[in-house]
């Protein structure tokens, strides 16, 4: 059977650009048709910004790669019109177990909070993720949106200018040139764009190798995340077992630094390792085997004039914590509305600079969490191993030690505390929805709050009516007046009012809170909107 990731989805086809006498100018060009590039393209196309995606490949990602998608990215995908197929296909999980040496030390339940449309996490192979994004692109094309993917198009040079970016693209028919008003580089951790522009990418290198073996098996393991520290089948190293759709299981085995990577990837080496872990009698077939090393690093700035870096091209973390693709989607979520307003002439350059402020803050948070997880999983000194093992031993008997166990701090959405776009806060309102936070979901009649938010600035009045529509200095602000009485679950009140009787929230197009008050004041909204647009 041909696997999804072996089927060309956007095969090379000659474009009229290749026959043009002068390089054709595009509004936005995205390099890389991975999760982040496709999400950015869909976001732009939905808002009627013409977008061209170029990729040197013509298929979805090879192998499962990223498999764990968190709630916030699923909410972003809902806004992009493709959350549902992901959740329908994905594996939901809440339970996990931690093993140390030969024994289980404890189990956990993520205990997701009620009153959210989306679960805390789903597991889904990256190739499905990309497939559903490509299907969304096709649906937008059918609606007549200006969105195009060119496979077999390899960018070989970049010429950043003050008013555009020139690109030379190589194809099976030879090279051609185009120009872009704006360029978004989503070309991965080894970003050729970053290299061609001679930009830095510094951080911490971790001297360790990990073997990923995705196996297909119908074994009777539960849908849980199992993590082993120093198990008998992989002494002094770690191991992970996690379920994906279609009876595919992710197995991740730490191998250490001094290994022969090519030899370790061979089935005759991999299969005995897996049998030692799963049991001699368990039948499985290998779907994908890879050995990876990782670094925790980021670019000094993600914006370089008209070139914007998003996803792994801008920052890289260890896979523990599922903070790679999940943070990349938060990059495009943050960038696209800003770029749209700048392209429309409704905001200035400073708004794009806030992409740096906010997403560098997010990247640093991810790098910090990821580095800490890695230091726990792979202790770098005798004393850190002694404390790590002490935590694990204690965790079996004492609940207090379990929060110290760090097998990956799973991705949570970033709150942009201290962002220059944040407006005023009001006392008494819940901390979780403070300015800079992503809006917390809540049930709303038969639907959900988040399905009513996004893609434009909105005023949300809770027990405090707001104008249905207002033009605030050229920006259309839509009003949404809600009553907590309409939500018997009490979630809306708990998440947005706290001890207050009423509140008014100014929401950004990316569903983040810009400012909030306990009553509606037009002048205050006007001022906060100007701040959220970086107009002063």
């Amino acid at each position, binding site marked *: 059977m041909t696997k999804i990731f072996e089927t060309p989805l956007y095969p090379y086809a000659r474009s009229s650009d290749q026959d043009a006498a002068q390089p054709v100018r595009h509004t936005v060009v995205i390099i890389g048709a991975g999760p982040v590039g496709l999400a950015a393209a869909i976001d732009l196309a939905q808002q009627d910004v013409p977008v061209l995606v170029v990729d040197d490949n013509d298929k979805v990602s090879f192998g499962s790669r990223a498999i764990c998608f968190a709630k916030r990215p699923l909410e972003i995908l809902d806004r992009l019109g493709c959350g549902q197929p992901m959740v329908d296909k994905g594996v939901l999980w809440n339970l996990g177990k931690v093993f140390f040496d030969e024994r289980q030390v404890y189990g956990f339940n993520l205990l997701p909070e009620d009153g959210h449309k989306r679960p805390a996490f789903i597991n889904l192979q990256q190739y499905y993720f990309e497939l559903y994004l490509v299907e969304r692109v096709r649906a937008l094309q059918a609606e007549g949106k200006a969105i195009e993917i060119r496979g077999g198009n390899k960018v070989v040079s970049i010429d950043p200018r003050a008013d555009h970016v020139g690109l030379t693209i190589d194809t099976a028919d030879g090279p051609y040139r185009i120009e872009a008003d704006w360029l978004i580089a989503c070309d991965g951790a080894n970003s050729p764009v970053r290299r061609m522009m001679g930009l830095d990418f510094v951080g911490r290198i971790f001297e360790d190798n990990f073997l990923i073996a995705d196996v297909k098996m119908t074994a009777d393991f539960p849908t849980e995340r199992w993590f082993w520290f120093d198990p008998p089948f992989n002494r002094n190293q770690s191991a992970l077992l996690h379920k994906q759709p279609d009876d595919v299981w992710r197995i991740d085995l730490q191998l250490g630094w001094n290994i022969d990577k090519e030899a370790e990837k061979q089935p005759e080496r991999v299969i005995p390792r897996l049998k030692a872990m799963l049991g001699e009698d368990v039948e499985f077939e290998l779907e994908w085997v890879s050995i990876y090393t990782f670094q925790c690093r980021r670019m000094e700035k993600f914006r370089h004039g008209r070139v914007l870096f998003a996803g792994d091209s801008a920052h890289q973390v260890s896979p523990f914590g599922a903070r790679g693709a999940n943070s990349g989607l938060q990059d495009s979520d943050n960038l696209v509305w800003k770029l749209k307003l700048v392209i429309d002439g409704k905001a200035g350059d400073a708004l794009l600079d806030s992409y740096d402020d906010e997403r560098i803050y997010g990247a640093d948070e991810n790098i910090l969490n990821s580095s800490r997880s890695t230091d726990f999983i792979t202790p770098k000194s005798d*004393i850190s191993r*002694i*404390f790590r093992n*002490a935590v694990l*031993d*204690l965790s079996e008997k*004492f609940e*207090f*030690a379990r929060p*110290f166990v760090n097998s990956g701090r799973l991705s949570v959405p970033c709150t942009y505390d201290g962002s220059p776009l944040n407006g005023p806060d009001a006392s008494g309102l819940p901390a979780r929805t403070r300015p800079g936070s992503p809006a917390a979901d809540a049930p709303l009649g038969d639907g959900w709050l988040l399905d009513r938010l996004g893609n434009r600035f909105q005023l949300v009045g809770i027990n405090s009516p707001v104008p249905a529509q207002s033009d605030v200095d050229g920006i259309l602000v839509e009003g949404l007046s809600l009553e907590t009485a309409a939500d018997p679950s009490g979630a809306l009140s708990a998440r947005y009012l706290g001890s207050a009787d009423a509140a008014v929230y100014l929401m950004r197009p990316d569903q983040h809170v810009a400012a909030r008050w306990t009553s509606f004041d037009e002048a205050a909204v006007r001022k906060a909107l100007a701040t959220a647009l970086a107009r002063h």
Partner: protein
Amino acid sequence: MTKLTTTTNITGADDFYAELLAAHEGLTKADSDALNARLILILANHIGDRAVLTEALAAAAGAGTDRKQPA
């Protein structure tokens, strides 16, 4: 503001000291190190107050530095 107690706080200091050493008696260096690590974590959790723990870390580091650099 100093919150860490650095004045005498244990009644029967000799008894406690003997109990501490007795806990390590007969252990290998590795087992002793592990016991100490578990003990630190248990005590740290009991204290709980992050400011006190930070002060305690600084106090412990400072006392060691003094010993290494005699006047």
